[in-house]
């Protein structure tokens, strides 16, 4: 039963463009009739994944099963799937009717049935009077409706949508979201939807698959993903959040921002470093000293339409974002508390940079094909593990001063410092804690501080 429910099953799928791995061991299944969203920043591989399902690209490794059958060798025109393209891709030389009838005519469907089905989908997308119109005279929103009609008229097993609303303005996008959801309910077709817009994903989906750097980060319902992000990337990408370094003291007790809080998480062990996420709407103001867990000073307050967004400085020197319906004046002292339910504790993905290197001489170790000056007592040629703490990596404005160069790829604000992912030209990563302000995309020189580094001989069994 459970197996039968899976209309699409993707196993160990990988794809590289040249040296760059765009998808890395993707495992995923889609249940019949569900609305599944592939969500991630641009360049994360989500569109590549969709194009492989559609058949426009072949995977390097792994398989895509449709109803249990591998469709690797099946060309796109023989797959019972249809796609709604990002920029509509309507045929400019055909009118609305002929655009929609294109697929049916190729299948040699009888005229009267084509007519019936085209009229039916036109009604469904609320474009009934437009059948004779030239597609280029239609507005963006109308073209989008025709593109959807052209795909669903073929009654595909799965409808693939590649950022279909990205080119529309905000108001139109909101309206189309509601209509898409309604269409999905009426048609009962499985939808696979690609977007970089987290709000769209939360609104539309039954299941969200968060992808970053070609890897699946988390799969879950919108509520799961929002309330229980598995790592800092997901927490940062979905909604606003305060992401902080913490320490699990024991089950149901966690310390962060130099205070201790009750929480609901168990099983991390005692005295273990963790990451903690608190959503800005989950930090509450109180006037009751008995409820107060920590104090802070409001340093900015901005009206955002429905709520106010405030940044506060805690008495322990951390900065937190709070959203509340009531504003508190800048400079005022406030008392704050967080419910145990609203603290999301995440396992740390890594505690330091663990790099493998080869000793060149007593002053130098070769890491990522670059010679880092690190004094050591090993024989030349020894394979070593170089453990560099996050604050043991120095980033420099002057690229020539760095041993290696890299690009700031991802930035997390951790309340009192920044945590950066720096990507080298060969797509290796350094993870860096810094107080300096960098922007995404900045080019930096990379140096390691030898006094912070721990060296060990590489285990033969590794």
């Amino acid at each position: 039963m459970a197996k039968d429910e899976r209309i699409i099953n993707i196993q160990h799928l990988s794809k590289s463009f040249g040296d760059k791995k765009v998808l890395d061991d993707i495992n995923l299944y889609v249940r019949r009739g569900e609305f599944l969203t592939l969500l991630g920043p641009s360049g994360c591989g989500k569109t590549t994944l969709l194009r492989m399902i559609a058949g426009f690209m072949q995977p390097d490794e792994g398989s895509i099963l449709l109803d249990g059958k591998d469709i690797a060798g099946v060309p796109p025109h023989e797959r019972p799937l249809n796609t709604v393209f990002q920029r509509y891709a309507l045929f400019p030389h055909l009118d609305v009717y002929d655009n929609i009838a294109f697929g049916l005519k190729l299948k040699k469907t009888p005229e009267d049935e084509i007519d019936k089905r085209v009229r039916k989908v036109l009604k469904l997308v609320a474009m009934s009077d437009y059948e004779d119109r030239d597609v280029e005279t239609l507005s963006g929103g109308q073209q989008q409706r025709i593109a959807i009609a052209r795909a669903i008229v073929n009654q595909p097993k799965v409808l693939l949508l590649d950022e279909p609303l990205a080119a529309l303005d905000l108001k139109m996008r909101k309206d189309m979201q509601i209509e898409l959801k309604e269409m999905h309910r009426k048609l009962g077709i499985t939808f696979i939807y690609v977007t970089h817009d987290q709000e769209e994903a939360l609104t539309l989906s039954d299941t969200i698959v968060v992808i970053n750097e070609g890897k699946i980060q988390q799969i879950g319902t919108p509520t799961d993903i929002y309330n229980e992000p598995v790592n800092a990337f997901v927490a940062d990408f979905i909604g606003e959040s305060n992401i902080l370094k913490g320490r699990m003291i024991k089950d149901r007790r966690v310390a962060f921002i130099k205070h201790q809080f009750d929480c609901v998480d168990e099983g991390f062990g005692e005295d273990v470093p963790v990451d903690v996420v608190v959503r800005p709407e989950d930090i509450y103001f109180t006037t009751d000293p008995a409820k107060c867990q920590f104090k802070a000073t409001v340093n900015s307050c901005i009206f955002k339409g429905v709520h106010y967004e405030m940044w506060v400085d805690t008495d322990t020197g951390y900065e937190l974002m709070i959203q509340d319906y009531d504003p508190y004046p800048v400079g005022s002292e406030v008392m704050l508390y967080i419910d145990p339910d609203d603290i999301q504790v995440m396992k740390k993905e890594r505690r330091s940079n663990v790099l493998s290197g080869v000793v060149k001489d007593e002053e130098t170790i070769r890491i990522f094909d670059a010679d880092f000056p690190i004094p050591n007592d090993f024989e030349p040629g020894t394979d070593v593990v170089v453990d560099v703490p996050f604050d043991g990596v120095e980033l420099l404005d002057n690229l020539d001063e760095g041993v290696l160069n890299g690009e700031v790829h991802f930035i997390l604000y951790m309340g009192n410092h920044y945590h950066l992912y720096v990507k080298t030209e060969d797509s290796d990563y350094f993870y860096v804690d810094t107080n300096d302000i960098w922007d995404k995309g900045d080019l930096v020189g990379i140096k390691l501080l030898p006094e912070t580094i721990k060296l060990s001989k590489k285990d033969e069994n590794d």
Partner: protein
Amino acid sequence: MMKTSTKLLSRIYIWLILIILYAPIVFIAVFSFTEAKSLGNWTGFSMNLYKNLFTGSMQNSSALLSAVENTLLIALIASLLATMLGTVAAIGIYNMKGRAKNVMTFLNNIPMINPDIITGVSLFLLFVFLRISQGYTTVILAHITFCTPYVVLNVLPKLSQMNPNIYEAALDLGATPGQALRKVMIPALRPGMISGFILSFTMSLDDFAVTFFTRGTIGLDTLSTYIYADARKGGLTPELKPLMTILFLIILVVLLVINIRQSKNNDKK
């Protein structure tokens, strides 16, 4: 006051340019309606030259007729083949990435700038080297060679205007690659292909240098080589004047039709 005088000046200027441009054509057209053998002599209005041209009662009329036939046939075959070849090449170039694309576009432009005489002589040498006997085939091959870049140049912009996903959209809706090309790509590229075809056709019609070097020694003549030989033999055959007038009128009508079609298309949008 000032304004009207500058306006007048600019009108005179544009008319002067038009007169200089069109005077030779008008000259031939006017003198096609008189019988004088030597150019520039007006011996009274007469339609006899036209009559001679169509009834064939002139010197060498069969040679002229076959030259006209050759010209039209070569132009038609060469520009049809160049249109197919150029369209496929344009699709290929469009799908290239980065440097290769720039290089290919540049290489495509060179034959257009290259003087005809050089193209003619080098093709001649190539055909000799390959021991291809020269005649009809070599002329058509040569014409395809210099026409194809013009088709590429006309089709490429249509490709960039086209939504890059429409080919995939056709496949997605169940079209085989062949059907997608026929039903979606070619209709989208058709305006570029038509203008490429017309340009090729006119380029081929009036080519002299390339034809002269590639026609071999079998006595193949196109209109331009015929007229050249004719003029060298002892003055232009008078019947050529009405022929040129008619050709000019045909081309004028074709151009007008294209322009009207284009402006109609623009009005629709």
